[in-house]
Protein backbone atom coordinates (compact mmCIF):
# COMPACT_ATOMS: atom_id res chain seq x y z
CA UNK A 1 0.00 0.00 0.00
CA UNK A 2 1.31 3.36 -0.98
CA UNK A 3 0.15 5.20 2.07
CA UNK A 4 0.66 2.48 4.69
CA UNK A 5 0.55 3.15 8.39
CA UNK A 6 3.75 4.84 9.51
CA UNK A 7 4.18 5.59 13.21
CA UNK A 8 6.78 8.29 12.57
CA UNK A 9 4.05 10.47 11.12
CA UNK A 10 2.45 10.63 14.53
CA UNK A 11 5.59 12.12 16.05
CA UNK A 12 5.85 14.42 13.12
CA UNK A 13 2.25 15.62 13.40
CA UNK A 14 2.14 16.25 17.14
CA UNK A 15 4.38 19.36 17.08
CA UNK A 16 2.56 20.62 14.01
CA UNK A 17 -0.78 20.27 15.72
CA UNK A 18 0.55 21.87 18.89
CA UNK A 19 1.12 25.04 16.87
CA UNK A 20 -2.63 25.61 16.85
CA UNK A 21 -3.31 24.40 20.38
CA UNK A 22 -3.58 28.00 21.52
CA UNK A 23 -6.64 28.47 19.29
CA UNK A 24 -8.45 25.55 20.86
CA UNK A 25 -7.53 26.74 24.32
CA UNK A 26 -8.60 30.28 23.44
CA UNK A 27 -12.03 29.02 22.44
CA UNK A 28 -12.35 27.05 25.68
CA UNK A 29 -11.11 29.91 27.86
CA UNK A 30 -13.19 32.53 26.06
CA UNK A 31 -16.29 30.37 26.13
CA UNK A 32 -15.93 29.55 29.82
CA UNK A 33 -15.24 33.21 30.61
CA UNK A 34 -18.35 34.38 28.77
CA UNK A 35 -20.26 31.41 30.12
CA UNK A 36 -19.49 32.28 33.74
CA UNK A 37 -20.69 35.86 33.36
CA UNK A 38 -23.76 35.02 31.28
CA UNK A 39 -24.50 31.98 33.43
CA UNK A 40 -24.49 34.00 36.64
CA UNK A 41 -26.62 36.70 35.04
CA UNK A 42 -29.08 34.09 33.79
CA UNK A 43 -29.19 32.25 37.11
CA UNK A 44 -29.89 35.27 39.30
CA UNK A 45 -33.37 36.16 37.95
CA UNK A 46 -34.45 32.57 38.37
CA UNK A 47 -33.03 32.31 41.88
CA UNK A 48 -34.67 35.54 42.97
CA UNK A 49 -37.80 34.99 40.87
CA UNK A 50 -37.61 38.28 38.97
CA UNK A 51 -40.83 38.33 36.91
CA UNK A 52 -39.96 38.99 33.23
CA UNK A 53 -36.24 38.22 33.35
CA UNK A 54 -36.96 34.83 34.83
CA UNK A 55 -38.95 33.87 31.73
CA UNK A 56 -36.26 35.23 29.40
CA UNK A 57 -33.61 33.25 31.21
CA UNK A 58 -35.71 30.11 30.86
CA UNK A 59 -36.09 30.61 27.12
CA UNK A 60 -32.36 31.22 26.76
CA UNK A 61 -31.44 28.14 28.75
CA UNK A 62 -33.80 25.83 26.94
CA UNK A 63 -32.69 27.06 23.53
CA UNK A 64 -28.99 26.47 24.17
CA UNK A 65 -29.47 23.24 26.02
CA UNK A 66 -32.04 21.91 23.61
CA UNK A 67 -30.32 22.41 20.27
CA UNK A 68 -27.08 20.90 18.94
CA UNK A 69 -24.09 23.16 19.23
CA UNK A 70 -23.28 22.65 15.55
CA UNK A 71 -26.64 24.17 14.60
CA UNK A 72 -26.03 27.01 17.02
CA UNK A 73 -22.69 27.70 15.34
CA UNK A 74 -24.32 27.87 11.90
CA UNK A 75 -27.18 30.02 13.16
CA UNK A 76 -24.81 32.49 14.76
CA UNK A 77 -22.27 32.62 12.01
CA UNK A 78 -24.70 32.91 9.10
CA UNK A 79 -27.79 34.24 10.84
CA UNK A 80 -26.51 36.89 13.23
CA UNK A 81 -24.89 39.15 10.57
CA UNK A 82 -28.13 39.08 8.54
CA UNK A 83 -30.15 39.94 11.61
CA UNK A 84 -27.83 42.77 12.62
CA UNK A 85 -27.87 44.11 9.07
CA UNK A 86 -31.49 45.03 9.68
CA UNK A 87 -30.37 47.48 12.35
CA UNK A 88 -27.41 48.66 10.23
CA UNK A 89 -24.70 46.96 12.25
CA UNK A 90 -22.10 45.29 10.10
CA UNK A 91 -20.43 42.34 11.73
CA UNK A 92 -19.41 40.53 8.56
CA UNK A 93 -15.83 41.76 8.93
CA UNK A 94 -15.40 40.14 12.33
CA UNK A 95 -13.23 37.03 12.45
CA UNK A 96 -14.92 33.62 12.52
CA UNK A 97 -13.25 32.97 15.85
CA UNK A 98 -15.35 35.73 17.37
CA UNK A 99 -18.59 33.99 16.41
CA UNK A 100 -17.26 30.66 17.57
CA UNK A 101 -16.27 31.97 21.00
CA UNK A 102 -19.55 33.81 21.47
CA UNK A 103 -21.60 30.76 20.49
CA UNK A 104 -19.64 28.43 22.72
CA UNK A 105 -19.81 31.04 25.47
CA UNK A 106 -23.58 31.34 25.30
CA UNK A 107 -23.86 27.58 25.12
CA UNK A 108 -21.69 27.18 28.22
CA UNK A 109 -23.64 29.96 29.94
CA UNK A 110 -26.86 27.99 29.66
CA UNK A 111 -25.33 24.99 31.39
CA UNK A 112 -23.48 27.15 33.93
CA UNK A 113 -26.68 28.96 34.89
CA UNK A 114 -28.26 25.60 35.67
CA UNK A 115 -25.17 24.54 37.63
CA UNK A 116 -25.21 27.76 39.65
CA UNK A 117 -28.92 27.49 40.30
CA UNK A 118 -28.61 23.97 41.63
CA UNK A 119 -25.54 24.80 43.72
CA UNK A 120 -27.04 27.92 45.28
CA UNK A 121 -30.20 26.03 46.16
CA UNK A 122 -28.03 23.40 47.82
CA UNK A 123 -26.48 25.87 50.27
CA UNK A 124 -28.04 25.60 53.71
CA UNK A 125 -30.73 28.25 54.15
CA UNK A 126 -29.94 28.55 57.85
CA UNK A 127 -26.57 30.08 57.07
CA UNK A 128 -28.25 32.86 55.13
CA UNK A 129 -30.40 33.57 58.17
CA UNK A 130 -27.27 33.57 60.31
CA UNK A 131 -25.70 36.07 57.92
CA UNK A 132 -28.76 38.31 58.21
CA UNK A 133 -28.77 37.97 61.97
CA UNK A 134 -25.15 39.12 62.05
CA UNK A 135 -26.33 42.24 60.23
CA UNK A 136 -25.29 41.50 56.67
CA UNK A 137 -27.25 42.85 53.74
CA UNK A 138 -28.78 40.53 51.16
CA UNK A 139 -25.91 41.21 48.79
CA UNK A 140 -23.26 40.58 51.47
CA UNK A 141 -24.93 37.35 52.49
CA UNK A 142 -24.98 36.16 48.89
CA UNK A 143 -21.45 37.22 48.01
CA UNK A 144 -19.74 36.14 51.23
CA UNK A 145 -21.72 33.16 52.45
CA UNK A 146 -23.77 31.61 49.64
CA UNK A 147 -21.60 32.08 46.57
CA UNK A 148 -18.31 30.65 47.93
CA UNK A 149 -20.12 27.54 49.12
CA UNK A 150 -22.13 27.24 45.94
CA UNK A 151 -18.91 27.42 43.93
CA UNK A 152 -17.39 24.65 46.03
CA UNK A 153 -20.45 22.50 45.39
CA UNK A 154 -20.42 23.33 41.67
CA UNK A 155 -16.75 22.71 40.90
CA UNK A 156 -16.97 18.99 40.10
CA UNK A 157 -19.86 19.55 37.70
CA UNK A 158 -18.14 22.59 36.29
CA UNK A 159 -15.03 20.48 35.66
CA UNK A 160 -17.11 18.13 33.54
CA UNK A 161 -18.36 21.06 31.53
CA UNK A 162 -14.85 22.34 30.83
CA UNK A 163 -13.71 18.94 29.60
CA UNK A 164 -16.81 18.56 27.45
CA UNK A 165 -16.28 22.05 26.07
CA UNK A 166 -12.71 21.22 25.13
CA UNK A 167 -13.87 18.35 22.97
CA UNK A 168 -16.77 20.26 21.47
CA UNK A 169 -14.42 22.96 20.21
CA UNK A 170 -13.59 20.50 17.44
CA UNK A 171 -16.90 21.53 15.89
CA UNK A 172 -15.46 24.99 15.21
CA UNK A 173 -13.74 23.28 12.31
CA UNK A 174 -17.12 23.18 10.60
CA UNK A 175 -16.88 26.96 10.22
CA UNK A 176 -13.32 26.67 8.94
CA UNK A 177 -11.49 27.62 12.12
CA UNK A 178 -8.02 26.10 12.01
CA UNK A 179 -8.00 24.77 15.55
CA UNK A 180 -6.73 21.30 16.44
CA UNK A 181 -9.26 19.28 14.47
CA UNK A 182 -9.20 21.64 11.50
CA UNK A 183 -5.45 21.49 11.34
CA UNK A 184 -5.47 17.72 11.64
CA UNK A 185 -7.92 17.48 8.78
CA UNK A 186 -5.60 19.59 6.62
CA UNK A 187 -2.54 17.57 7.55
CA UNK A 188 -4.41 14.39 6.75
CA UNK A 189 -5.49 15.67 3.37
CA UNK A 190 -1.98 16.83 2.51
CA UNK A 191 -0.16 13.68 3.54
CA UNK A 192 -2.90 11.09 3.05
CA UNK A 193 -2.00 9.73 6.46
CA UNK A 194 -5.36 10.27 8.13
CA UNK A 195 -5.02 7.52 10.70
CA UNK A 196 -1.78 8.96 12.03
CA UNK A 197 -3.19 12.48 12.24
CA UNK A 198 -6.21 11.26 14.14
CA UNK A 199 -4.02 9.32 16.55
CA UNK A 200 -1.84 12.37 17.11
CA UNK A 201 -4.97 14.47 17.55
CA UNK A 202 -6.44 12.06 20.08
CA UNK A 203 -3.19 12.07 22.05
CA UNK A 204 -3.22 15.85 22.26
CA UNK A 205 -6.88 16.08 23.30
CA UNK A 206 -6.27 13.40 25.89
CA UNK A 207 -3.21 15.16 27.30
CA UNK A 208 -4.98 18.50 27.47
CA UNK A 209 -8.10 17.14 29.12
CA UNK A 210 -6.01 15.15 31.57
CA UNK A 211 -4.13 18.32 32.52
CA UNK A 212 -7.34 20.32 32.81
CA UNK A 213 -8.86 17.60 34.94
CA UNK A 214 -5.92 17.67 37.31
CA UNK A 215 -5.98 21.47 37.62
CA UNK A 216 -9.69 21.44 38.31
CA UNK A 217 -9.29 18.68 40.85
CA UNK A 218 -6.70 20.77 42.64
CA UNK A 219 -9.18 23.59 42.64
CA UNK A 220 -11.89 21.32 43.95
CA UNK A 221 -9.71 20.08 46.78
CA UNK A 222 -8.86 23.59 47.82
CA UNK A 223 -12.43 24.87 47.69
CA UNK A 224 -13.92 21.88 49.44
CA UNK A 225 -11.43 21.66 52.27
CA UNK A 226 -14.12 22.73 54.73
CA UNK A 227 -16.14 19.62 53.84
CA UNK A 228 -13.40 17.30 54.99
CA UNK A 229 -14.26 15.14 57.86
CA UNK A 230 -10.99 15.43 59.66
CA UNK A 231 -7.85 17.42 59.20
CA UNK A 232 -5.32 14.62 59.37
CA UNK A 233 -7.14 12.69 56.69
CA UNK A 234 -7.32 15.72 54.41
CA UNK A 235 -3.66 16.46 54.96
CA UNK A 236 -2.68 12.91 54.09
CA UNK A 237 -4.80 12.94 50.98
CA UNK A 238 -3.25 16.20 49.90
CA UNK A 239 0.28 14.88 50.33
CA UNK A 240 -0.55 11.66 48.53
CA UNK A 241 -2.06 13.52 45.66
CA UNK A 242 0.84 15.87 45.23
CA UNK A 243 3.42 13.16 45.69
CA UNK A 244 1.65 10.96 43.12
CA UNK A 245 2.25 7.89 45.21
CA UNK A 246 1.14 4.66 43.56
CA UNK A 247 -2.50 3.72 43.94
CA UNK A 248 -1.92 0.72 46.14
CA UNK A 249 -0.55 2.95 48.89
CA UNK A 250 -3.84 4.75 49.12
CA UNK A 251 -5.97 3.18 51.76
CA UNK A 252 -9.62 2.69 50.82
CA UNK A 253 -10.95 5.41 53.11
CA UNK A 254 -8.51 7.87 51.64
CA UNK A 255 -9.44 7.27 48.05
CA UNK A 256 -13.16 7.01 48.84
CA UNK A 257 -15.46 9.75 47.68
CA UNK A 258 -16.04 12.57 50.16
CA UNK A 259 -19.39 12.85 51.73
CA UNK A 260 -20.06 16.16 53.45
CA UNK A 261 -21.24 15.58 56.96
CA UNK A 262 -24.36 17.24 58.15
CA UNK A 263 -25.01 17.36 61.84
CA UNK A 264 -28.57 16.82 62.89
Amino acid at each position, binding site marked *: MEYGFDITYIFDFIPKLLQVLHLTLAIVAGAIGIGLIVGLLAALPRLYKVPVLQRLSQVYTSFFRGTPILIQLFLFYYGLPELLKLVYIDVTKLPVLFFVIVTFGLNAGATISEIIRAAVTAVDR*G*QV*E*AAYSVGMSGYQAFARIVLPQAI*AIAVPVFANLVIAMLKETSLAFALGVMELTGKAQTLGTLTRHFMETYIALAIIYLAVSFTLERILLLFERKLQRHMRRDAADAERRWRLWRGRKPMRERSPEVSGKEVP*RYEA
Partner: protein
Amino acid sequence: MIRLSGIRKSFGRQEVLKGIDLHVGKGEVVAILGPSGSGKTTLLRCINYLEKPGEGEIRIGDQALDARRAGKKDVHALRRRSAMVFQQYNLFSHKTALENVMEGLVVVKKMSKDEARKRGIALLEKVGLGAKLDAYPSRLSGGQQQRVGIARALALEPEVILFDEPTSALDPELVGEVLAVIRRIAKEGITMIIVTHEMGFAQDVANRVVFMDEGVIVEEGPPAQLFGNPKEERTRQFLKRLTPEASYTI
Protein backbone atom coordinates in the same frame (compact mmCIF):
# COMPACT_ATOMS: atom_id res chain seq x y z
CA MET B 1 -34.29 47.38 76.75
CA ILE B 2 -36.64 45.68 74.39
CA ARG B 3 -40.30 46.33 73.99
CA LEU B 4 -42.65 44.36 71.80
CA SER B 5 -46.14 45.67 71.34
CA GLY B 6 -49.01 43.95 69.64
CA ILE B 7 -46.93 41.54 67.55
CA ARG B 8 -49.10 39.52 65.23
CA LYS B 9 -48.01 36.96 62.71
CA SER B 10 -49.89 34.56 60.49
CA PHE B 11 -48.70 31.79 58.23
CA GLY B 12 -51.39 31.58 55.62
CA ARG B 13 -54.68 31.36 57.49
CA GLN B 14 -53.14 30.23 60.72
CA GLU B 15 -52.41 32.97 63.20
CA VAL B 16 -49.37 31.92 65.22
CA LEU B 17 -48.87 35.12 67.21
CA LYS B 18 -52.00 36.80 68.44
CA GLY B 19 -50.80 40.14 69.71
CA ILE B 20 -47.76 39.72 71.91
CA ASP B 21 -46.65 42.41 74.34
CA LEU B 22 -43.35 41.85 76.06
CA HIS B 23 -40.89 44.05 77.82
CA VAL B 24 -37.36 42.99 78.62
CA GLY B 25 -35.22 45.25 80.75
CA LYS B 26 -31.51 45.86 80.32
CA GLY B 27 -29.46 42.98 81.67
CA GLU B 28 -32.51 40.81 82.13
CA VAL B 29 -32.53 37.14 81.17
CA VAL B 30 -35.94 36.03 79.99
CA ALA B 31 -36.77 32.41 79.25
CA ILE B 32 -39.71 31.62 76.99
CA LEU B 33 -41.34 28.26 77.55
CA GLY B 34 -44.28 26.62 75.91
CA PRO B 35 -45.43 23.55 74.01
CA SER B 36 -44.32 23.17 70.41
CA GLY B 37 -46.45 25.20 68.07
CA SER B 38 -47.06 27.84 70.71
CA GLY B 39 -45.26 30.45 68.62
CA LYS B 40 -42.24 30.99 70.85
CA THR B 41 -39.63 30.46 68.15
CA THR B 42 -41.63 32.59 65.71
CA LEU B 43 -41.72 35.38 68.28
CA LEU B 44 -37.96 35.21 68.71
CA ARG B 45 -37.44 35.26 64.94
CA CYS B 46 -39.71 38.28 64.67
CA ILE B 47 -37.47 40.23 67.04
CA ASN B 48 -34.60 39.69 64.63
CA TYR B 49 -36.90 40.17 61.65
CA LEU B 50 -36.04 36.78 60.20
CA GLU B 51 -39.78 36.44 60.26
CA LYS B 52 -41.75 39.48 59.20
CA PRO B 53 -44.52 40.20 61.67
CA GLY B 54 -47.88 41.11 60.20
CA GLU B 55 -48.28 43.99 62.59
CA GLY B 56 -46.91 45.36 65.83
CA GLU B 57 -43.96 47.38 66.98
CA ILE B 58 -40.50 46.18 67.92
CA ARG B 59 -38.23 48.44 69.87
CA ILE B 60 -34.65 47.63 70.78
CA GLY B 61 -32.93 50.47 72.63
CA ASP B 62 -33.76 53.64 70.76
CA GLN B 63 -34.46 51.82 67.49
CA ALA B 64 -38.14 51.31 66.88
CA LEU B 65 -39.74 49.57 63.94
CA ASP B 66 -43.36 49.39 62.94
CA ALA B 67 -44.02 46.16 61.06
CA ARG B 68 -46.48 47.79 58.67
CA ARG B 69 -44.07 50.38 57.34
CA ALA B 70 -40.62 48.91 57.86
CA GLY B 71 -38.06 49.68 55.18
CA LYS B 72 -34.87 47.77 54.47
CA LYS B 73 -32.85 50.31 56.45
CA ASP B 74 -34.99 49.94 59.55
CA VAL B 75 -34.71 46.18 59.41
CA HIS B 76 -30.97 46.42 59.01
CA ALA B 77 -30.64 48.83 61.94
CA LEU B 78 -32.79 46.58 64.09
CA ARG B 79 -30.80 43.49 63.24
CA ARG B 80 -27.55 45.18 64.14
CA ARG B 81 -28.84 45.60 67.68
CA SER B 82 -29.51 41.95 68.22
CA ALA B 83 -27.72 38.68 67.61
CA MET B 84 -29.10 35.21 67.33
CA VAL B 85 -27.98 31.76 68.40
CA PHE B 86 -29.72 29.12 66.34
CA GLN B 87 -31.02 25.69 67.15
CA GLN B 88 -29.05 24.23 64.23
CA TYR B 89 -26.00 26.45 65.01
CA ASN B 90 -25.97 27.71 61.40
CA LEU B 91 -22.26 28.33 61.36
CA PHE B 92 -20.79 29.40 58.04
CA SER B 93 -19.45 26.04 56.99
CA HIS B 94 -16.76 27.34 54.64
CA LYS B 95 -15.19 29.39 57.40
CA THR B 96 -13.16 28.32 60.41
CA ALA B 97 -14.33 28.87 63.97
CA LEU B 98 -12.33 32.07 64.18
CA GLU B 99 -13.49 33.32 60.79
CA ASN B 100 -17.08 32.68 61.81
CA VAL B 101 -16.65 35.00 64.77
CA MET B 102 -14.70 37.59 62.76
CA GLU B 103 -17.10 37.70 59.81
CA GLY B 104 -19.68 40.06 61.29
CA LEU B 105 -17.01 42.27 62.82
CA VAL B 106 -15.13 42.74 59.56
CA VAL B 107 -18.05 42.86 57.14
CA VAL B 108 -20.73 44.61 59.15
CA LYS B 109 -18.86 46.55 61.82
CA LYS B 110 -15.99 47.38 59.45
CA MET B 111 -13.45 46.48 62.09
CA SER B 112 -9.85 45.90 60.97
CA LYS B 113 -8.92 42.25 60.53
CA ASP B 114 -6.27 42.35 63.25
CA GLU B 115 -8.64 43.81 65.76
CA ALA B 116 -11.39 41.37 64.79
CA ARG B 117 -8.96 38.48 65.09
CA LYS B 118 -7.96 39.60 68.57
CA ARG B 119 -11.52 39.82 69.71
CA GLY B 120 -12.40 36.55 68.01
CA ILE B 121 -9.60 34.71 69.76
CA ALA B 122 -10.54 36.20 73.13
CA LEU B 123 -14.17 35.18 72.70
CA LEU B 124 -13.41 31.67 71.54
CA GLU B 125 -11.14 31.24 74.54
CA LYS B 126 -13.97 32.46 76.70
CA VAL B 127 -16.28 29.73 75.40
CA GLY B 128 -13.50 27.19 75.88
CA LEU B 129 -12.49 26.76 72.25
CA GLY B 130 -9.10 28.43 72.27
CA ALA B 131 -7.64 25.25 70.79
CA LYS B 132 -10.11 25.07 67.89
CA LEU B 133 -9.61 28.46 66.26
CA ASP B 134 -8.78 27.08 62.84
CA ALA B 135 -11.17 24.14 62.81
CA TYR B 136 -13.98 24.07 60.27
CA PRO B 137 -17.48 23.48 61.64
CA SER B 138 -17.58 20.03 60.05
CA ARG B 139 -14.78 19.00 62.41
CA LEU B 140 -16.46 20.27 65.56
CA SER B 141 -18.98 18.48 67.73
CA GLY B 142 -22.46 19.92 68.03
CA GLY B 143 -21.65 21.39 71.42
CA GLN B 144 -18.50 23.00 70.10
CA GLN B 145 -20.34 24.38 67.08
CA GLN B 146 -22.97 25.92 69.31
CA ARG B 147 -20.30 27.52 71.47
CA VAL B 148 -18.79 29.06 68.32
CA GLY B 149 -22.31 30.29 67.54
CA ILE B 150 -22.48 31.94 70.94
CA ALA B 151 -19.05 33.54 70.47
CA ARG B 152 -20.19 34.82 67.06
CA ALA B 153 -23.23 36.43 68.69
CA LEU B 154 -21.22 37.89 71.57
CA ALA B 155 -18.64 39.39 69.22
CA LEU B 156 -21.15 41.85 67.83
CA GLU B 157 -21.81 43.30 71.29
CA PRO B 158 -25.55 43.37 70.61
CA GLU B 159 -28.06 44.90 72.98
CA VAL B 160 -29.75 41.54 73.20
CA ILE B 161 -28.85 37.95 72.32
CA LEU B 162 -31.69 35.75 71.15
CA PHE B 163 -31.29 32.03 71.80
CA ASP B 164 -33.54 29.76 69.77
CA GLU B 165 -33.60 26.41 71.55
CA PRO B 166 -29.81 26.40 71.74
CA THR B 167 -29.53 22.87 73.06
CA SER B 168 -32.41 21.08 71.33
CA ALA B 169 -30.29 19.64 68.54
CA LEU B 170 -27.51 18.44 70.82
CA ASP B 171 -26.74 14.99 72.13
CA PRO B 172 -27.65 14.85 75.81
CA GLU B 173 -24.05 14.65 76.95
CA LEU B 174 -23.18 17.86 75.09
CA VAL B 175 -26.01 19.97 76.50
CA GLY B 176 -24.13 20.72 79.71
CA GLU B 177 -21.16 22.46 78.12
CA VAL B 178 -23.39 24.80 76.14
CA LEU B 179 -25.61 25.63 79.10
CA ALA B 180 -22.53 26.32 81.20
CA VAL B 181 -21.37 28.91 78.66
CA ILE B 182 -24.78 30.58 78.50
CA ARG B 183 -24.95 30.63 82.28
CA ARG B 184 -21.55 32.31 82.46
CA ILE B 185 -22.44 35.08 80.02
CA ALA B 186 -25.80 35.59 81.72
CA LYS B 187 -23.89 36.55 84.84
CA GLU B 188 -22.10 39.28 82.90
CA GLY B 189 -25.30 41.24 82.56
CA ILE B 190 -25.96 40.68 78.88
CA THR B 191 -29.64 40.93 77.98
CA MET B 192 -30.88 37.59 76.74
CA ILE B 193 -34.09 36.04 75.54
CA ILE B 194 -33.95 32.26 75.53
CA VAL B 195 -36.46 29.90 74.02
CA THR B 196 -35.79 26.60 75.71
CA HIS B 197 -37.11 23.26 76.79
CA GLU B 198 -34.60 22.94 79.61
CA MET B 199 -36.78 23.65 82.62
CA GLY B 200 -34.02 23.35 85.20
CA PHE B 201 -31.86 25.71 83.22
CA ALA B 202 -34.63 28.28 82.81
CA GLN B 203 -35.32 28.15 86.51
CA ASP B 204 -31.67 28.58 87.29
CA VAL B 205 -30.61 31.28 84.83
CA ALA B 206 -33.67 33.37 84.02
CA ASN B 207 -34.81 36.42 85.94
CA ARG B 208 -38.21 35.98 84.43
CA VAL B 209 -40.00 33.14 82.73
CA VAL B 210 -42.65 33.64 80.08
CA PHE B 211 -45.08 30.85 79.31
CA MET B 212 -46.64 30.91 75.85
CA ASP B 213 -49.40 28.81 74.39
CA GLU B 214 -51.34 29.09 71.14
CA GLY B 215 -49.86 32.42 70.17
CA VAL B 216 -50.42 34.31 73.39
CA ILE B 217 -48.46 34.89 76.57
CA VAL B 218 -50.38 32.93 79.16
CA GLU B 219 -48.38 33.85 82.19
CA GLU B 220 -45.09 35.42 83.15
CA GLY B 221 -43.20 35.94 86.35
CA PRO B 222 -40.06 35.12 88.30
CA PRO B 223 -39.07 31.47 87.93
CA ALA B 224 -39.80 30.63 91.55
CA GLN B 225 -43.35 31.83 91.16
CA LEU B 226 -44.04 30.39 87.72
CA PHE B 227 -42.60 26.98 88.46
CA GLY B 228 -43.61 26.83 92.12
CA ASN B 229 -47.03 28.33 92.06
CA PRO B 230 -48.40 28.92 88.57
CA LYS B 231 -51.61 30.93 88.42
CA GLU B 232 -52.97 29.59 85.16
CA GLU B 233 -54.34 26.14 84.60
CA ARG B 234 -52.61 25.83 81.21
CA THR B 235 -49.23 26.56 82.77
CA ARG B 236 -49.85 24.02 85.45
CA GLN B 237 -50.73 21.32 82.95
CA PHE B 238 -47.71 22.09 80.79
CA LEU B 239 -45.35 21.91 83.76
CA LYS B 240 -46.95 18.75 85.00
CA ARG B 241 -46.20 17.03 81.75
CA LEU B 242 -42.56 18.03 81.97
CA THR B 243 -41.77 17.43 85.60
CA PRO B 244 -38.85 15.08 86.08
CA GLU B 245 -40.94 12.88 88.38
CA ALA B 246 -43.01 11.79 85.44
CA SER B 247 -42.23 8.20 84.69
CA TYR B 248 -42.45 6.53 81.33
CA THR B 249 -43.10 2.92 80.71
CA ILE B 250 -41.26 1.63 77.75
